[in-house]
């Protein structure tokens, strides 16, 4: 991908003759998502979190885990979705190591994130809210938005509208005071 030219070619702002990365990568992702529905089912990530919690609780407090209706409903980790999540970890690792090596670092994304501790706090709280919200709705970006709208589901469209409404508001509000 993107062989580093010795000198950046003087392309007028806008598209070069090549497809922009979001378009080619998006088209490939569309094929991957379609092949998933052809072979095993729509891609989805967030259900793996409660399955993981269930797997741990069944070891440390089996009585509670077996009596919890949600953990029982979600079932065991032996599911294609779990392998998908393992794949995400491997894919992220490989793509960041192969080709041009760009060290991933912790990025500060809001005005209030002045220390790494505050960044980790936002990441933790953000992680908590996305999984909690996704479980209420029954899916996340992959399950509801990508797979959902791909299958033309109304729930995916409603979920996406909710996500972008508060997502845009939160990101814009937290920018205040910075830059």
């Amino acid at each position, binding site marked *: 991908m993107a062989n580093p030219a010795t000198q950046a070619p003087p392309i007028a702002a806008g598209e070069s003759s090549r497809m922009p990365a979001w378009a080619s990568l998006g088209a490939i992702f569309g094929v991957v998502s379609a092949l998933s529905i052809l072979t095993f089912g729509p891609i989805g*990530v967030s259900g793996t979190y409660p399955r993981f919690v269930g797997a741990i609780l069944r070891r440390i407090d089996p009585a509670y885990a077996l009596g919890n209706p949600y953990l029982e409903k979600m079932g065991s980790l032996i599911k294609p979705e779990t392998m998908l999540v393992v794949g995400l970890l491997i894919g992220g690792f490989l793509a960041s190591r192969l080709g041009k090596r760009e060290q991933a670092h912790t990025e500060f994304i809001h005005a209030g994130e002045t220390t790494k501790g505050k960044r980790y706090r936002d990441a933790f709280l*953000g992680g908590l809210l996305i999984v909690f919200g996704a479980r209420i709705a029954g899916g996340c970006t*992959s399950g509801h*938005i990508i797979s959902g709208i791909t299958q033309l589901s*109304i729930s995916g469209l409603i979920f996406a509208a909710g996500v972008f409404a508060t997502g845009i508001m939160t990101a814009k509000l937290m920018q205040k005071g910075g830059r």
Partner: protein
Amino acid sequence: MDLIYALIAGVAMGALIQRVRASSPAMIARNLRLENLSIIKFMATTIAVGTILVYGMSLFTTMHFDIKPTYVVGVLVGGLIFGVGFGLGGYCPGTCVVGAGEGRKDALWAILGGVVGALIFAVVFDSMITPLLKLADYGKITLADVLHLPAFGVALGLGALFLGIVYLLPTEVKKA
């Protein structure tokens, strides 16, 4: 065999997310602030190509469709809560796993937050969440059902609409 297909799909998905920079919280924040629309355009392209392919293939073979039910209030409330977390942390449940694979430390905190969120959810599910799932539940409905049109036709239309929008939208948004 399903497990192997899913693993392959996951590796591909993780690599694509990493390369398009969707696992970068700073890039997500720029998209949500509508300064750069590359991730939004990436997602819309994925959906457009995906929907045309799946409903095209469905004319010739059986697909493993799995439509999620539309319980309007719960889906919307869940989306609104998700959006706050998405804007706050810059990760979604999948991109933080990709970020962890890349070696981002904050991604590990996001995953930990997700596990805690799932635990809280499991604890309060029976008493607080179940009623929400019954409000305005229309079941597994699609745009094709609502429009009373053939699914492949709707997929072609929606795909063309999304591709048209991403073609017209700028990637870098100039400040007015």
